[in-house]
């Protein structure tokens, strides 16, 4: 712990993870296409994109599993391929699936992995931390999907890594398990680790990450904090919920000129505002108008969620760059499937 902290401080200015114009090709397919980004210590960076966007290829290049066709990858200043043996002691890896002896229980596997490292975490304490204390001896193959993912996360953490690579860490994890994973990821970030994770789920990126890199077809589409990404394409709406059947015209008048109110679903409203409107006074007027009528105010949200930004970005790209082959429809279908499917190759 202590020497790891010292090492973290020693070269904390350099990025922990660097991708510079990375291209990864499999035969004729270009999985990653001139992708560049950096991730720093004390930061959670999410690679967000639909399945097949090149997220896993990128992460596996950083982990040293596959060579890049061109461009540079660096982790802690090291070349993941050439300096593999020096790097593996300093990174923690969670594969998208599997990676654990199917007949061994969590305690056995975690003690085994702990023995690979010079200064490991206490395996038993770590098991309790990830909420697997009650299934210490259950063979891996009999654990639930969520328990398997949490064991994988524990295996990634046991060597006290400086950089953590998590490929779809919450895929197949139940809501309770997701909270455990999120808390653990946040705790590692607070300890000064650099966490690079991939996800195709927007909610997860929004909840887990400090910064999001949106990729599609191997290219970077947008980069920023969830808030920045959302405001960058803000359409100036305010959403809220209250009783159904409001007098929309009266509310719009109360808000001010140019405002309009739409009831999108019963009890769920969207206030459209003219560009450049400051939202705090609008929210104040809205709250006052509802208070006069003794109505409740719920689910208030200004701007867009990352989901809307994500769909706006990926959608805009699909329209502005129709493929030479008639694949626009297929591209959309793939994007839709990406919301639910788990595989990502």
């Amino acid at each position: 712990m202590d020497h790891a902290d010292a090492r973290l401080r020693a070269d904390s200015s350099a990025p922990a993870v660097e991708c510079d114009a990375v291209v990864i090709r499999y035969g004729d397919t270009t999985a990653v296409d001139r992708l560049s980004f950096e991730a720093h210590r004390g930061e959670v960076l999410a690679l967000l994109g639909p399945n097949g966007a090149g997220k896993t290829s990128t992460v596996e290049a950083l982990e040293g599993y596959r060579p890049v066709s061109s461009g540079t990858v660096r982790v802690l200043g090291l070349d993941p391929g050439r300096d593999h043996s020096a790097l593996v002691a300093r990174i923690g890896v969670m594969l998208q699936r599997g990676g654990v002896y199917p007949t061994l229980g969590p305690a056995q596997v975690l003690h085994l992995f702990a023995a690979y490292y010079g200064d490991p975490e206490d395996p038993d304490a770590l098991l309790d931390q990830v909420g697997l204390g009650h299934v210490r001896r259950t063979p891996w193959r009999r654990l639930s999907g969520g328990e398997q993912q949490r064991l994988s996360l524990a295996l990634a953490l046991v060597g006290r890594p400086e950089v953590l690579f998590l490929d779809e860490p919450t895929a197949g994890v139940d809501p309770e398990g997701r909270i455990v994973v999120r808390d653990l990821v946040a705790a590692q970030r607070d300890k000064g680790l650099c966490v690079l994770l991939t996800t195709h789920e927007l909610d997860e990126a929004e909840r887990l990450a400090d910064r999001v890199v949106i990729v599609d077809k191997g290219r970077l589409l947008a980069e920023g904090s969830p808030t920045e990404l959302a405001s960058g394409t803000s359409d100036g709406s305010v959403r809220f919920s209250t009783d159904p059947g409001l007098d929309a015209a009266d509310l719009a008048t109360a808000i001010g000129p140019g405002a309009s109110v739409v009831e999108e679903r019963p009890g769920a409203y969207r206030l459209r505002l003219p560009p450049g409107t400051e939202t705090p006074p609008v929210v104040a007027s809205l709250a006052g108008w509802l208070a006069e009528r003794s109505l409740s105010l719920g689910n208030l949200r200004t701007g867009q969620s990352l989901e809307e930004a994500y769909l706006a970005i990926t959608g805009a790209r699909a329209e502005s760059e129709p493929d030479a082959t008639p694949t626009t429809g297929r591209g959309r279908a793939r994007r839709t499937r990406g919301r639910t499917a788990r595989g990502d190759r």
Partner: protein
Amino acid sequence: MRPLLAQLRAELTMLFTNGETLFLTLGIPVVFLLFFSAVHVLPTGTAHPVDFLVPGILALAVMSTSMTALSIGTGFERGYGVLKRLGATPLGRPRLLAAKIGAVIAVEVLQAGVLVAVGYLMGWNPGGPAGSGACVGQALAAMVLGTVAFGGIGLVLAGTLKPLVNLAVVNALFVVLLLLGGMLIPLSKLPVWLADLSRLLPAAALAQALHGTLGRGTPVAARDWVVLAVWAVCAPVVAGLTFRWE
């Protein structure tokens, strides 16, 4: 050293807690030895079948551990992504391989101890030169070469086939080599062309070496040394060239 010992312990734990592996490496050889020593149905050509069976089944035991058990285990580890995941730890391939070799040797020592003990119980009495240091030494050397050869064959299959296909292929190969390898049935009982073909395979070469040294008390034939050595060099080299870790 700590990673290697921990890995060796894990490999042994998995071998000894896996019912199928135990059946394959201890159950089958011991049952064959007991049954065919007591029930004289095999054309062993010796006055006491057990005198033929102990060396033959020792060869079978080497094959079951170094080829079949190693291959099935490694194939599933590859299929489950375990080998890939280990690639991102400081364990490293040399130590992983060393742990697997250590586990195979440990199981073989146990097998040999049990089979020799059962053999003596069933009246095995290798007379004269068969018990000499020279013969036992040659038998051990042949078993080491056989282990390397069979291990290489097992890893060629485990490193290229899907786990379930590998399971089927390696079990089928086990049965074929058991029948053609002169382990239970002397090569002299096979058609000449088949016996000639078998002599080029590591199973027959190892069985012949053990029948000679531990049965008749004769040294290993040069031809058997050559066959074993060629397999012991070529199979691991091919495994190294073709093995896919994912």
